[in-house]
C-alpha cells in the first residue's frame, strides 16, 4: 500500500524534499530538474540523469555485458522490475560486480541531480524502477557524498559548466606531457561532446571523467563551449533531447530501445 505524501512539496530543494520523503519511509520516484531519484522505504535504490550514462551503457560499452545480453535481460525482466536479477541469474555478471556498477551509476547520477539542487518537480508515489532492487543507500549518504564530490571538483577547477556543456580543446596548447588517463580523456574532446558523452565513449564512470576534464580545464587545455552554439546540421541529432524535461531519462531509454530494434 502506498500512502499519499505531500510534505515534500513544502521544501525548496530536491535534497530537502528527499530528506522529508526518507523520514516518511516513502516509496516512489522524485523528479528533479536534472534527473529522477527512486526511493524504496525511504532509501535511495536508483538515480538516473540524462547527464550521465546509465548502467546499461556502462556495462555494454565496456564490453562487460554484450548488448544482446543486456536487452535480453531488459526484455525478460523489465516488466517484473527484475532486470538486475536477470543479468546475475543468466551468469553474465556476479551479484557483487552488478552492485559495484550500480552504486557507481547511482552516485554519478545523484551528483547531477543534487548539485543543481532546485525545487523537486513531482513525486510519483509507489513508482518502481525497472532495474529492480540491487542495493539501497540512505538519503543522507547520497546527499553528503554529492556535496563532497562537488567540493572536490570545485577545488580542481571551479567551473560547473565543464560538467554539462559541450567541450572543446583550447587551440595552440601543448598536450605532449599529459598523464595517460588525462591524455585519453582529451582525445575525446571534440567541440561537440559533453562530459557524459565522453564518459560513455570511454566506458568510464562520469565522476572519474569529470575529475580528468576539470584538471584539463585547470591546465588550460579544455573549455566549455558557450551555449549559443551554431545550429546543428539536419539529420539525426543527438542533442535534440529536452534537458529540462523530468522524464528525459525515460525518453533517452526509449530512443535507445528503438534504435536497438
Amino acid at each position, binding site marked *: 500500500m502506498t500512502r499519499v505524501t505531500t510534505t515534500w512539496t513544502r521544501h525548496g530543494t530536491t535534497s530537502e524534499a528527499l530528506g522529508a520523503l526518507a523520514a516518511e519511509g516513502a516509496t516512489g520516484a522524485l523528479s528533479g530538474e536534472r534527473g529522477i531519484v527512486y526511493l524504496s522505504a525511504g532509501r535511495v535504490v536508483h538515480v538516473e540523469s540524462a547527464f550521465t550514462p546509465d548502467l546499461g551503457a*556502462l*556495462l555494454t560499452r*565496456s*564490453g*562487460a555485458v554484450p548488448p544482446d545480453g543486456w536487452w535480453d535481460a531488459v526484455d525478460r525482466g523489465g516488466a517484473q522490475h527484475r532486470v538486475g536479477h536477470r543479468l*546475475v541469474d543468466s551468469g553474465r*555478471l*556476479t*551479484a*557483487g*560486480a552488478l*552492485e*559495484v*556498477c550500480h*552504486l*557507481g551509476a547511482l*552516485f554519478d547520477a545523484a551528483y547531477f541531480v543534487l548539485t543543481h539542487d532546485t525545487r523537486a518537480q513531482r513525486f510519483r508515489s509507489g513508482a518502481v524502477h525497472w532495474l529492480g532492487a540491487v*542495493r539501497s543507500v540512505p538519503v543522507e549518504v547520497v546527499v553528503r*557524498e554529492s556535496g*563532497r*564530490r562537488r567540493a*572536490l571538483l570545485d577545488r580542481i577547477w571551479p567551473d560547473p559548466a565543464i560538467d554539462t556543456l559541450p567541450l572543446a580543446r583550447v587551440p595552440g596548447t601543448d598536450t605532449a606531457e599529459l*598523464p*595517460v588517463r588525462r591524455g585519453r580523456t582529451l582525445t575525446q574532446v571534440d567541440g561537440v561532446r559533453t562530459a557524459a558523452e565522453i564518459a560513455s565513449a570511454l*566506458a*568510464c*564512470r562520469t*565522476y*572519474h571523467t569529470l*575529475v580528468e576534464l576539470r584538471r584539463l580545464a585547470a591546465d588550460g587545455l579544455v573549455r566549455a563551449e558557450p551555449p549559443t552554439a551554431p545550429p546543428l546540421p539536419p539529420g539525426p541529432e543527438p542533442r535534440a533531447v529536452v534537458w529540462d524535461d523530468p522524464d528525459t531519462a525515460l525518453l533517452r531509454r526509449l530512443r535507445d530501445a528503438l534504435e536497438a530494434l
Partner: protein
Amino acid sequence: MANLETSLKECLSSIDGATAVALVDYTSGMALGTLGGGKDFNLEVAAAGNTDVVRSKLRTMEHLGLKEEIEDILITLSSQYHMIRLLKGRGGNGLFLYLVLDAGRANLAMARHQLRRIEGELEV
C-alpha cells in the same frame, strides 16, 4: 553468487587475522562497503585517507612513465598489516579493497592469495 556484502564477509571469515575490510572508490574517497573496524578503528576515515596513498602512488608512476599497474600495496605497522588491492576489470576501474590484518595471526602470502580470489567476484 557472491554479492558485495558476502564478499566483504568472506574477507573477514576466510583470511586469517583479518579484522576490517572496505571497498573504496579512490577517485572520490567514498567507501562503497565496509565491514569490521569498530569504535577504535574508524574504517570510513581509513578508507578516505588511504585514497591519498593510492592516488599518490599512481601519480608517481605516471611521472616516472611506468606503464605497469599496481596489484597491491602493503603497509606494515608494528602490530598490523594494511593491505590495499586495486581492482582491475572494466567496470571496477578506480576501486580498491582495503584489508586490515592482525600481524600476529596473519599469513601475508595466504592473505594476498585469498584477496585476489575474492576480488575476482567483484570485477566486471
